[in-house]
């Protein structure tokens, strides 16, 4: 099963728990689903050179990122037996403790949900043109580096 249309991924600001709850609730009608795996990225108050991160400001090469999200999606449906998947990523300012990434994979059985979700998160981190500017409490900044 593949879904061909492009889905909206970028959300302005933080992803709220209510938004996540609504996404979960929408799946109660899909009764072939037995397992969901949800990954959430949360902004940490990392200490860098004695300064504490207060927020991350995300920017992206949006058109290119959207193409890549679409390619990731198509490949995941080929590789894993899943029912549906959703990716949401913040743009703009997300404060420490707030959520900036929400990956949601649903499958009949848990193994496909786990494996596909993990795979998607790694691909997002490695392949998509998104940048996080870490804003310190004193309003200076540095550029985030993914590991």
């Amino acid at each position, binding site marked *: 099963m593949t879904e061909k249309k492009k889905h909206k991924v970028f959300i302005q600001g933080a992803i709220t728990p209510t938004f996540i709850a609504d996404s979960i609730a929408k799946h109660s009608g899909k009764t072939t689903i037995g397992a969901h795996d949800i990954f959430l*990225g949360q902004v940490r108050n990392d200490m860098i050179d004695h300064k504490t991160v207060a927020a991350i400001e*995300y*920017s*992206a*090469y949006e*058109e*290119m*990122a959207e*193409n890549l999200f679409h390619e990731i999606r198509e490949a995941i449906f080929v590789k894993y037996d899943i029912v549906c998947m959703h990716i949401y*990523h913040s743009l703009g300012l997300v404060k420490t403790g707030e959520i*900036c*990434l929400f990956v949601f994979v649903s499958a009949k059985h848990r193994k496909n949900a786990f494996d596909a979700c993990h795979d998607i*998160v790694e691909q*997002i*981190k*490695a*392949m*998509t*043109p*998104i*940048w*996080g*500017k870490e804003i310190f409490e004193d309003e200076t900044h540095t*550029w*985030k*580096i*993914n590991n």
Partner: protein
Amino acid sequence: MVFGQLSEIINASELALLAINNTNELNKILFELYPILEEMKFTIAVNKKIIHENTPLNHKDIVALLPPFSGG
């Protein structure tokens, strides 16, 4: 198009450069204009695809300089 920390160095999110034939030539000009770029990691996308070798450029191509990704 220029993104992330590179847009701070170049101090713009777009850059108009005329009559560049390929991406090797582009790199050479960029390093002349902004020597610090030689010390930075970045990849080049032409028309939203990352290129891995020298690529010919036409007038209408959209070229983007991409510093290391840090989404998620």
